[in-house]
């Protein structure tokens, strides 16, 4: 049989159709169309089936990417799906929102040699959506029930991944989340045009159907203390994420109209989910008709600018102190934003916010330049003297990053050790915190990071907690 793979020499890279910018900015639906079957097969066949799969190396989940690409190319979609889900609890989510250009696709061998990457993310999304459509995604059914139970605090990607794995092994799992919906940032943080909400909801439903108990609107520290949870459960996994927005220190930062990115995104997402959000209704968190300036260059900033476009902003500007090459956000998102009409002010930092306490009217910014590289090799930005410039803004969104909240304080658990940045300290190998039986993972340990890393931590936590629980109840484990 002729070689089915290695088609990059003859087949150009192509991604699923992207809706034109003007057609997509009117709604919050995902901008990429689905791959049609033939296209997925063709694109997957471009894979070079490398001796060393750089894509896998650079995937936090170490997905067996070449293998499911091969299966896809050969039309063995169910097998492709099975391989894909074997290493990832939320593959269709990763396929949508991973910054593939910085991970798998960015390291793709044929990308490195200038042939254009294999469209790994699109294929991942395709095979897993297909699996949902075709009913290949099996209900969660543990082979046998175990008596031990685990509390998972936080229903974001780490929590969902951990719940999936632990429940499959038969443990009793309860997820606690302070929000009224499960999914964490997946449901409230990430805009629908990147990740439509039913994608998250069906995952949550599968867990619930499989016996995972969800206690929503439950705030640890208020509704129960950490000690309560520890008493009730055999193990606790803390994966609350990092929610404390970094503050802007410029004069005028307290003005009305200067908002936190997450507040802004949550309001937008809630609205999209049909909730009535007063701050949105009032216009406080609605960009419609306004000049919007978003400060920051990460993926959250990109989510904000593109949300603002969709809300009907008059203008949307992104202010970032380094240049395009040095921004932390995904390049793919930047170009999406550019297509959608966002203005980027590179090498610019806010100096002060114009207007008064009752309402911001603009942003005064300073030009920056990149200085000499620091120890990490990254060039530090420095101010260009006398380079002020102003731009109008009625809504300024602070997307400067997130820090951990005070978890020991909030949870009433002073003995829970944290780092000097406030992240929870967990053993590198066992994932256990300073408290016996309390584990932690995801952003609350790593600091703000990617969804895929959170999933990785969730999966690792399954192994760590299993090992812990088996050691704790060897007789029980042996009986099974």
């Amino acid at each position, binding site marked *: *049989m002729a*070689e089915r793979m*290695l088609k*990059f*020499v003859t087949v150009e890279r192509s991604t699923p159709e992207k809706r034109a910018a003007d057609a997509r900015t009117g709604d919050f639906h995902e901008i990429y169309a689905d791959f049609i079957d033939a296209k997925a097969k063709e694109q997957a066949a471009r894979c*070079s*089936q*490398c*001796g*060393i*799969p*750089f894509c*896998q*190396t*650079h995937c936090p989940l*170490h997905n*067996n990417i*070449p*293998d499911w690409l*091969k299966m896809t190319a*050969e039309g*063995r979609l169910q097998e492709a799906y*099975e*391989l894909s889900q*074997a290493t990832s609890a939320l593959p269709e989510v990763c396929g949508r929102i991973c910054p593939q250009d910085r991970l798998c696709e960015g*390291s793709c*061998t*044929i990308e*490195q*040699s*200038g*042939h254009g990457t294999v469209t790994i993310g699109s294929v991942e999304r395709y095979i897993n959506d297909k699996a949902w459509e075709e009913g290949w995604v099996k209900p969660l059914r*543990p*082979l*046998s029930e175990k008596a031990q139970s685990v509390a998972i605090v936080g229903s974001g990607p780490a929590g969902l991944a951990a719940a999936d794995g632990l429940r499959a092994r038969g443990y009793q799992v309860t997820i606690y989340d302070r929000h009224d919906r499960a999914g964490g940032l997946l449901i409230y943080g990430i805009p629908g045009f990147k990740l439509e909400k039913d994608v998250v909801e069906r995952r949550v439903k599968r867990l619930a159907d499989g016996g995972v108990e969800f206690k929503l609107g439950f705030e640890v520290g208020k509704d129960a203390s950490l000690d309560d949870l520890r008493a009730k459960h055999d193990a606790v996994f803390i994966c609350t994420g990092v929610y404390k927005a970094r503050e802007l220190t410029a004069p005028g930062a307290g003005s009305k109209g200067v908002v936190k990115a997450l507040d802004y995104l949550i309001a937008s997402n809630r609205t999209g989910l049909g909730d009535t959000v007063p701050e949105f209704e009032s216009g406080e968190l609605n960009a419609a008709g306004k000049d919007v300036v978003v400060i920051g260059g990460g993926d959250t900033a990109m989510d904000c600018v593109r949300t603002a476009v969709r809300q009907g902003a008059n203008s949307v500007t992104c202010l970032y102190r380094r240049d395009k090459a040095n921004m932390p956000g995904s390049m793919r998102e930047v170009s999406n934003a550019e297509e959608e009409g966002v203005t980027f002010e590179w090498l610019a930092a806010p100096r002060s916010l114009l207007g008064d306490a009752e309402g911001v009217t603009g942003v005064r910014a300073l030009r920056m330049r990149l200085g000499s590289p620091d120890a990490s090799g990254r060039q530090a930005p420095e101010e260009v003297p006398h380079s002020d410039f102003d731009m109008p803004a009625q809504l300024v969104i602070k997307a400067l990053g997130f820090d951990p909240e005070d978890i020991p304080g909030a949870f009433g658990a002073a003995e829970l050790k944290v780092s000097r940045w406030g992240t929870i300290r967990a053993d590198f190998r066992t994932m256990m915190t300073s408290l016996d039986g309390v584990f932690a993972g995801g952003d609350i340990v790593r600091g703000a990071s990617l969804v895929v890393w959170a999933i990785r931590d969730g999966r690792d936590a399954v192994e760590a907690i299993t090992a812990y629980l088996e050691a704790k109840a060897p007789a029980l484990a042996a009986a099974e």
Partner: protein
Amino acid sequence: MADDAQMQRYFENRERLIEGGAYDPASERDACGVGLVCAIDGQPRREVVELAIKALKALWHRGAVDADGKTGDGAGILVSVPQDFFADQVRRTGHTLRKGPIAVGQIFLPRVDLGAQELCRTIVESEVLRFGFYIYGWRQVPVDTSIVGEKANATRPEIEQIMLAPPAGMDGEALERSLFLCRKRIEKRVHSANINGFYICSLSAKSLIYKGMFLAEHIDEFYPDLRDERFSAAVAIFHQRYSTNTFPEWRLAQPFRMIAHNGEINTLKGNSNWMKSHEIRMAAQAFGDFGEDVKPVIQPGGSDSAALDNTFEVLVRAGRDAPMVKTLLMPEAWAHSDAVTNPQHQALYAYCNAVMEPWDGPAAICATDGRWVVAGKDRNGLRPLRVSYTDDGLIIMGSEAGMTGVAEARITRKKHISPGRMLAIDLAEGKLYEEGEIIDLLSERHPYTRWLGNMVALDEEIGPGSEPRMYSREELVRRQVAAGLTLEDLELVLAPMIEEGKEAVGSMGDDAPLAVLSEKYRPLSHFFRQNFSQVTNPPIDPLRETRVMSLKTRFKNLGNILAQDETQTDVYVLESPVLTNGMYKRIVEYIGPKNVAVIDCTMPLPAPEARHGDALRAALERIRAEAEDAALRGCATIVLSDEGAGPNRLAAPMILATGGVHAHLVQKGLRSYVSLIVRSAECLDTHYYAVLIGVGATAVNAYLAQESAQDRMERSLTGELALRELLLNHKGAIEAGLLKILSKMGISVISSYRGGYNFEAVGLSRAMAQEFFPGMPSRISGIGLAGLEQKAVEMHRKAWGEAAVALPVGGFYKARRTGEAHAFEARLIHTLQHACDTGSYDSYKRYSEGMKGLGPIQLRELLDWRPDRAAAPLDEVESINEIRKRFVTPGMSLGALGPEAHGTLNIAMNRIGAKSVSGEGGEDRARYKPLPNGDNPNSAIKQVASGRFGVTAEYLNKCVELEIKVAQGAKPGEGGQLPGFKVTEMIARLRHATPGVMLISPPPHHDIYSIEDLAQLIYDLKQINPDAKVTVKLVSMTGIGAIAAGVAKAKADNILISGHQGGTGASPQTSIKYAGAPWELGLSEAHQVLVLNGLRHFVRLRADGGMRTGRDIVVAAMLGAEEFGIGTASLIAMGCIMVRQCHSNTCPVGVCTQDESLRKKFTGSPEKVINLFSFIAEEVREILASLGFRSLQEVVGRTDLLQQVSRGGEHLDDLDLNPLLVMADPGPNKPYCTVEGRNPVPDTLDAQIVRDAAALLERGEKMQLTYTVRNTARAIGARVSSHIVRKFGMDGLPPGHLTVQLKGSAGQSLGAFAVQGLRIELTGESNDYVGKGLSGATLVVKPSPTLSFPEHNAIIGNTCLYGATSGKLFAAGGAGERFAVRNSGAIAVVEGVGANGCEYMTGGQVVILGEVGENFGAGMTGGMAFVYDPNERFELYLNDDSVVIQRLASAHWEGVLHGLVSEHAEETQSRFAKELLRDWDRVRGHFWQVCPKEMIKRLAHPLVDQEVKETA
């Protein structure tokens, strides 16, 4: 006594190395020149002895000489016992002569230990008396010790003869048999008395053997007896030995009791094992009460030739005559041969096949049983055997023509013996049997055809039929997991086999850990490394020479090999040992369940508290006991199966079960009563099959692999293929794979491979290997029963313990996170590339540290320094510059690499005074001149590989070193092919081929079938390039030390030891993974054995294979290397990211591809490569400094500076690297090369020619020179061609500018690499390799005018025009085997050729005006051939896989043919050619035109004229 001290040190070193497991004397090899002179009438003549001695003196160049210039490797002569001479001796001692012949024993006695000597005499006397002989007395054989070397003298035995009178009335065969039994008893008794140095050369009334460790030319000086006029004989067999060791052991000289053998027995291990089974029944029947005395038939401690002689002799003494024994042991290839058409011959060979496993390997043997004299060849015809008949009834045969110097006028006929055939002379009747006649005689002796009626061709009975399905999908997956299978196994290995009938192909080297170092589960097969041929014997091409290969498998009780009746043929015969599930089922049904014992090879799960390994041992003991019991019960078929594995039962490793049962049954003498069918779940790839068969399985059924295939079909993954096609594909792929594995070690018949343990274990417990695979080397020990059991339990848990199982993805061939570790991993590649791109040594150090952090992958990672002194300041260590000179980029051809990458390496290495190897495939002439910027893009080392692509006189002169690639780490023992799509215009031009047409590199060098052939090639290369050093590239294996010693004696300057990790552009995955050993093992063995033999300081050792850091370099140096090849890392420096798709021509970074658009992606530069080598050198400096050394030279061979720091995983019994670290004492010699320049070789006639042709060479004057020659004048024309090409270039002189006329018998390699301008006219005959690498010269060979019908006579030897690129050869007579092999441009006319003519030819034109041998045109993809075939036999001999034939149908091509025949007639004055021309209109219809299929569409002139077609 300097020599005594030397001998003392030799013995101590030898003992130390043997004890340390670094050296096994059984690995020593020998080869040689051989021949005989015989009076057909059986009447003794003095001339027979004289001619034999003369011949021996003319064969010195086929032997080797020790450093003392006097100690030879051995020479000897077997003559008929000169009765008159001994009658005089008897009379002189005062005895009266009794009736009957005098029997003479030629005996080596211990010389120094007089007590032992006396005891030996006593034993001899008491035994001969016991047999009823009368002792005339002892005679001290006169010897002249002054002419033997010091070493030989030190080991010289006391040489005496005992003269006996037979018991009254005993004569002839009965007498010889009695003497044989008597000798056997003497040997036994001496052995049990623990006496060394005793050996009976001969004890016979017919044959007497004089031999010893002197130079062949001194034989009659050492033994003055031989000059005695009374020494006359009817037959004299002589032998000149070339040995791989230098230790002079007198008993190892040949001839042995019956034969003299040139070549090597590749199947020795299997043959010896089977003889152990056969001899039990045979001995009892043939020798009755003396049965025990003849056992073991094969004497331990002998060479392969000695073992063959032992077997030959016992079969003769058991009542078979020499011609029949030769036929049994070395039958002609008959199964697939169209040439063996006589059904009676077929029946004879089929009978032989049913009786005995052939002794396979290159062989020319000359033998006598006293009455019969035979001389014959192996089935492949791999050794030369030339025959001359004199007008007075003598026959002279041997390795070379013209040895005896008999006047041409006396010779009436000259011929070659054909492959597999023989001449036989019955001295009693005084009758000569020609090749056909002797087989007629043998086949008529018994009703073989009728006997064959008993033989059941099993294939007809059991297939095709239904193929059952056994397991549900879920159970299948569990069983797959339990058997250690992965998705990768199914997708990458199984899928291509079932879908395309082909084995998976991969590229680059094996960078996964050795099985013993792996943390993952590895099947037992991974611990077995396939053996392969290099230097001392050739691999075979299983694709193009299929007709000699056979997988025919005998079933049932094999009976007594001596039975000459129909019971012998009461066997089942299968075409191959590969069984499908259905076939297995039907076999059991057919044989009848009563006669089949199915043994369950599973066991209960070991109790958690039990000691590891106990349960497995108990299970294996049970299995062996059950097998023994079944055999004793009379079950002729035993099935070993692990099918019973399941949730509660664990499978025993089937290789262990099979090996255990086989070894056990052999030991009990039961093995030949039964057949073993093995059903294994783990068995999936060809290597696994090979291991099972190699450790004793008769047939194999890989039931789970088949289930997996059927499962794929049911899941619609196999396209349109029907089940039958699928299974046939699978079976076909495995069979082709088995043939490949057999052929790579030169074995053509599976029955001789079975149970031969043709592997070496890397990482198996020595004790376990000894028990289950006796005789298989396992040098470093490793995993044992305990570890195997633990691993099996682990896999069992995974498979049956979890709720849901999924197949693991794998990661053995290609890296996967959850799979096997790989030495190069993604981040380290980027770090290294960053370092090379930016010149950052810090980055390099991060890479190097990262490498260290990977955990053990290769043996060297278990070693660390053991400093013996304080550190030295870094600035005192030799410079980067000095160290870099020791680096080499190993042979990667332009063809594998893109031209940019190839050129970049050359430029980089030249800039730093290091060396790059061209690889196989020529070099662009444009590269011979520096670039305008001063860069030199020419490879310093030019490779000479088996394809000889682009190997011209010019190519050979444009370098400082020539590398003979004998084997390649990634696929030792295999050839290669460059598919048509990779043969671009440029590649085609460099390789003298046609664009788009496939090019084949044969597995062997067709001019190296034996060690003396290698010596000849080295000699030839040193002639064509008077300055270049010659390197021989070998692949690491156990026994390489002996080979390296042989290579050193062949005057090589460098020896390269390649590890199995070495890369490749395309090889079968099982070859990349399972052949060859780590360089650590081979390098240390080569180094130590060279030191042992006092040869180390004559050669430079180089190593390569997966070296990537300074640490690797220093370890290699300490293990003995002086120079270092770095391949993969240098590619990575140029941008390679190990996509491992080199074989697909889709390298995305443009390194390893010919695709124009991909080549544009190449980003490498010489600077990056230089950075890599500078970094490595700097790291070497740092290590040296830390160890307190100032140069790399100081640590060469210093294994005492290394220590083992890890013994591997906890589950291992032991992992003992001492065999690497044991050190021989070099005495006064250095443990590194001290030769300045190169090792000199003797001058040839060309030295004279060059002197005489001064006018030409200095002023370009036209000249004509005349000489007489003998066979000792070799490579005539090569040296003068070197002068011409250097002075005038390849085409600077017009053809025939220098004419050299020769008369006589020219030595080998006449006109090798000879260039345009040179013309050689030889009247007489020539030996092998005429026109080797011919590069433009004209060679004319015509017979002496006294020879009648020269067209029916041999005139040139084997392998002529091998690798010729241009020029002409006209020979008025027959050529030997393999004429014009790999010819890519020369034009030739000859009057007959032997087997394998025009094989792999890619260009040129060949006209054959006479008969051809078998397999003509195999793998011929270019050029054109014409064959005159008046007897309509040509089609029988044609291999039409790649060529078409037709009658002349084009005026153009007929014109070409006519022109060539005319030119031939004119040049050689051939009467025959002239007659053809005269009769052209009549004979033209008897010509065939042979054209490669691929060429038809590319011909400038079509094969058929348009008008001819229309009228026809």
